């Protein structure tokens, strides 16, 4: 049935012109013979040899790998997004960690040992994140893992950290699930979570409007972070006694580049306030397009206008927009942050993002735990840090024993009119740091959501 003369896969047949002539002719049949091997060796023998070769290579690598253990040094790891649309968050977070480790090493190391950082790109994919984390845990023998940008990756890594008993520090991805539904004792969150952040914003707004009834519209990305933020915001407003009516809610997909279908309904709704859950590049795109539709003239927008967004928008954000950020360097007080900001600017020629500051505090938290425990061991560290208060550049942070959430403040303010000449971006006026204790879930609420052991 099979013709044996007209041989070769379609791929080969098609590719042969590449190797012969480039004259636009398609037929390669006459050169087929070149590609058919006609040796008489037994089928598969080449593959057996390759198999032996691969085994030998693998053995050599395993052997070599076991010889590269270094003395006098411990390793910590971070798998985060270094490419793709949220790369900026991952990269600046990594810088914060690096600066903190450099300082520790300059002062003689931790417990007499230098600390080395290994970093890998997770490309926003949980599969890559877990692979990277596993490699770091098993090959690099990391003593601590620092969290990623994406909460999905974070949750996957948290499972791993628990399995291998590695302390896990979240400072960018802030899904509250990490300290509730998928909580393990090995996790420590030093960033306001998805309950704390919207509550802080609601609190600020409640203080602003008092008893006056207001209308609100909501637009947030269509995934758990976005939806949770929206729900928490509305619930918190009501809990603070605000007379609020929600006029419309929109849920564009994460990474949407065209908000023109969503903005006109928001404008038409004429809400007093529009809560925007988009962040980073999405918020930049949304703002540009919303400006075109005059949304800011009709409503006061509430959004996560941090360093990246304000710098990119270069003065275009209308004054009075309510802005919130997890660590805005221009609004934070205290010598620690100011010194860090200057050092960061000197080293990287730009001002630090919230993620850089948070990364730094994450390392400080870990280092404090190590010193308190007197050991790098995961279990000892967890015992030492649970319920402890650590000193960081942003002041003292207490890690609650029931869910290991740090009482980290969220900063809410109003965008200034002018661009600050020193910082090249608009800053906040009427800033309030809403303390973490006032916006966290109660321990009872948190523990109810946690898995039972």
């Amino acid at each position, binding site marked *: 049935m*099979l013709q044996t003369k007209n041989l070769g896969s379609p791929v080969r047949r098609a590719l042969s012109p590449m190797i012969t002539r480039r004259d636009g002719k398609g037929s390669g049949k006459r050169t087929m013979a070149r590609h058919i091997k006609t040796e008489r060796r037994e089928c598969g023998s080449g593959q057996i040899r390759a198999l032996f070769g691969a085994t030998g290579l693998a053995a050599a690598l395993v052997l070599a790998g076991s010889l590269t253990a270094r003395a006098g040094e411990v390793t910590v790891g971070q798998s985060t997004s270094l*490419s793709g649309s949220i790369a900026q968050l991952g990269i600046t977070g990594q810088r914060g960690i690096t600066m903190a480790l450099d300082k520790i090493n300059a002062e003689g190391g931790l417990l007499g040992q230098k600390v080395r950082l290994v970093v890998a790109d997770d490309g926003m994919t949980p599969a890559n994140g877990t692979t990277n984390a596993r490699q770091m845990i098993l090959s690099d023998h990391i003593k601590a893992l620092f969290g990623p940008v994406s909460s999905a990756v974070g949750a996957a890594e948290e499972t791993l950290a628990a399995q291998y008993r590695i302390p896990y520090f979240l400072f960018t991805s802030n899904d509250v699930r990490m300290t509730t539904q998928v909580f393990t004792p090995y996790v420590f969150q030093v960033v306001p979570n998805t309950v704390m952040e919207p509550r802080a914003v609601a609190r600020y707004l409640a203080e602003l409007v008092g008893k006056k009834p207001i209308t609100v519209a909501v637009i947030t990305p269509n995934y758990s972070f976005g939806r949770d933020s929206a729900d928490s915001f509305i619930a918190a407003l009501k809990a603070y006694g605000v007379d609020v009516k929600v006029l419309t809610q929109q849920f564009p997909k994460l990474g949407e580049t065209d908000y023109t279908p969503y903005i006109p309904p928001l404008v038409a709704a004429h809400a007093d306030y529009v809560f925007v859950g988009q962040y980073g590049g999405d918020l930049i795109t949304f703002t540009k397009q919303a400006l075109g539709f005059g949304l800011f003239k009709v409503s006061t927008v509430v959004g996560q206008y941090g360093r990246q967004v304000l710098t990119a928008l270069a003065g275009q954000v209308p004054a009075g927009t309510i802005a919130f950020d997890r660590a805005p360097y221009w609004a934070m007080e205290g010598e620690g942050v100011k010194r860090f900001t200057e050092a960061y600017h000197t080293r990287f020629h730009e001002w630090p993002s919230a993620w850089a500051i948070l990364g730094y505090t994450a390392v400080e938290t870990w280092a404090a735990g190590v010193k308190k425990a007197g050991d790098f061991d995961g279990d000892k560290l967890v015992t030492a840090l649970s319920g402890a208060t650590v000193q960081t550049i942003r002041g003292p942070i207490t890690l609650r024993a029931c869910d290991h959430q740090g009482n980290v403040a969220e900063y809410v303010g109003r965008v200034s009119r002018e661009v600050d000449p020193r910082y090249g971006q608009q800053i906040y006026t009427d800033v309030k740091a809403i303390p973490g204790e006032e916006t966290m879930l109660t321990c009872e609420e948190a523990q109810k959501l946690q898995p039972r052991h």
Partner: protein
Amino acid sequence: MAARAFPSGGYKAGVGFAILLLMVSPWVLPTSWLLVLENVLVLALFATATNLLVGWTGLVSFGQAAFYGIGAYTVALAWLHGIASFWLAFIAAPLIAGLIALFTGAIALRARKLYFALLTLAFSELFYVLAEQLYDITNGANGIFGAMVPALLVSPLIGFYFTLAVVIVALALLYRIGHSPFGLTLRAIRERRVRAEALGLAVSHHELAAFTLSGAFCGLAGALYVVHDQTAYPELLNWVKSGEPVIVAVIGGISSYAGPLWGALFYQIAHDALVALTRDWQMALGALLLLVVLFRPGGIVSFFGGREER
């Protein structure tokens, strides 16, 4: 040059040696390598199942990740909504994936060549969007994560042996399928579809059967992925993920049964090594693929000599 239904002596020895190596690896390799090997096994199954379509039948599909993802989501959703136990869901995964492949194939196979490839790409993206948008069912863009795999399988050793066993059985099945009269017919279709039709072969039935089988085995690979990573997320279904087994098969050599296996070994290790070594891993991986496509289109197996598998 008739195709062999049973492998030659030398080939059998090679396979036996490989299986032996794999079985002792947990005792020899550090755990991290073991987990890489587990990834390789799953990828090898995914790529071989895809190659049943691409290399064997000549149907270039850029949509097999849809079935891979459906297999993964079957296990994950069963756990999330408490519908079925893990084992039941694991068995159901390839069946459901195969069923959906049957429907999808019936539609997609109406087009030929490039348009077939684009159709499969469209299906892949469609399922991806559905997984992302149907937030209440699938948890949306976050994906599903949690203790969906029985504790027994989470331990690296047992998990590895389980994956190894399933993959060996599946690959053996695929081998038998490929070297059966059914497989011969597929290759006849690949060579010259018109001629196969003229010879009276039920070409469209065979193509649909191949599509369904490929989908089912891809679904099995997806279920194995959940065992490995305990998560399912929408990106498992998109066209970029669909391209992965095709790339792996091409790197290994699509015209041979063992090609995708070599491709999986090489690709997974190269990918992990590059990500660990450099931030420019995308550049390196892209360059690698470029070089293979331009200069060694026969893939890794073309280095080995011997007769081409027929």
